[in-house]
């Protein structure tokens, strides 16, 4: 396994939408390298014919009758929003300016 470089961590922070500072990147890169070394062993254990297990119990699709049930009111749904307007979540602009 390749070690994680500081640039890798910066890239991953971008993917994870975390605006890490330079100091944080320095600290996290070192720590993540140690953690990765500790867990890398899991990659070489299982024979190829072992099936992966995604879930502890067998999953079957669950259905229910299509009937109305009470849900949140608009006020409840918006109660924790950082900003709202006209019964909607108010968000920053989503497009870059041209």
């Amino acid at each position, binding site marked *: *396994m390749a070690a*994680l470089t500081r640039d*890798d*961590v910066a890239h*991953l*922070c*971008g*993917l*994870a*939408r*975390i*605006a*890490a*500072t330079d100091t*944080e990147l320095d*600290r*996290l890169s070192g*720590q*993540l390298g*140690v*953690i*990765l070394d*500790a*867990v*890398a*062993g*899991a*990659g*070489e*254990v*299982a024979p190829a014919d*072992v*099936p*992966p*297990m*995604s*879930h*502890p*119990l067998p*999953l079957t699709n*669950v259905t*229910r009758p299509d009937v109305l049930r009470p849900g*949140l009111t608009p006020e*409840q*749904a918006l*109660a*924790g*929003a*950082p*900003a709202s307007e006209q019964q909607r*979540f108010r*968000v*920053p*602009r*989503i*497009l*870059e*300016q041209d």
Partner: protein
Amino acid sequence: MTGTSPDLTRWSATDLAAALAVGEVSAVEVTRAHLDRIAAVDPEVHAFLHVGADGALAAARAVDDARAAGRPLGPLAGVPVAVKDVVTTQGLPTTAGSRILAGWVPPYDATLVTRLRAGGLVLLGKTNMDEFAMGSSTEHSAYGPTHNPWDLERIPGGSGGGSAAAVAAFEAPLAIGTDTGGSIRQPAAVTGTVGVKPTYGGVSRYGLIALASSLDQAGPCARSVLDAAALHEVIGGHDPRDSTSIDAPAPAAVEAARRADVRGLRIGVVRELGGDGYQAGVRTRFDESVQLLVDAGAEVVEVSCPSFEYALAAYYLILPSEASSNLARFDAMRYGLRVVPDGVDAPTAEQVMAATRDAGFGDEVKRRIILGTYALSSGYYDAYYGQAQKVRTLIARDFEAAFGRVDVLMSPTTPTTAFRLGEKLDDPVAMYLSDVATIPANLAGIPGMSLPAGLADEDGLPVGVQLLAPATHDARLYGVGAALEAMLLERWGGPLLDRAPALPTTAPTREGVA
């Protein structure tokens, strides 16, 4: 049998319920006693992030009124309970120990909270935890650590250290925890209390703020096996709102705890969860518990689970992967913190999201999100996440083989007693090792219990013994646990927590604090 102490906070939940049922005490009295205890000791213990005194007293009054009117009530009606802050509670703040959710008041109750309220239990407040349940010491809480009631300089375990400490400090007779890799059992072990992780799917996850969805499970924290059983029966059972909920009633845990019989039972001691790397006092107390069960008529054999060696590594690939996906919901748009980046005119939603997540998440959460993002990224998925899932299969097979030979498995819950606050904070891997014995159960989805086995000779701190049973056989844990507990109580001449030092108390605020 009702409690004998004049102090209601020393009573078991079962004794309180019995006294409440016959009108010997009122729910308001019981609730007041616990609120007073919280006011007195929590400034030092810091088990609670929020105490809802008014709501608790109102709920207690409603139970007293209902009882006076002769309405049918649940077996624990009027008994107080503390709830881990990762469980949503309508009208009570829910932060999961994170700055990103500071002050958030959920608009709905988790199913298990709905069941607590319907059963007449009185919610005292929300307990401290490692941020988003990531940790083994509560030191990753954004609101400061909880202190172990046995030694305030030591960790109470984690992530559910607040729930365990609340119960150990007699601030609540019962508490709710969640266990993703040991967060109920490890805190129970280091605080001298009882904690149970039910079978995956045994308690609804609806309303739990998700950490790792294939591992998370809520369960009871208490001071006795019987009390834990009673709480388990209230919160367990099928919930149509959780698609992974098992379509079966809660286990007959109370009946099993009352029967407490181990004669003829086959118990396996897991070779890989013990020996080198386990503190001497932990091993001594564990061996004693094994011998007590042998004396009581159980047949004990050693079993080997060779793949457990890789459980920790697999877990720290699977958990971050699931967590990085689950925590994507904290986007600064619909609830929680919103931080606008400095020096950017008219920032985009994406820039706001990134600034918010940097300011709102602590280091451990960031480490795991980044690790999970890496493990799931193209080109690495098969090497990390895919391989870890195969190891998970091997661990489940180890359990399957073991349970073909024995009814219950046994190990120490943790390799050590409570370590000092700060000791492992800067060494994530050392911290992870705290959960080496509890993680296999989460990976396989089987139920586990930790109960006190005594105090380690070298430091006088509590040691926990872990019991594991096959999926859906949670009742077995209560049977064996109660039998072992009874023998240990006889040996100790009383509950282990009676030996905990008295906590420093703060005078009630109504008298005015200097």
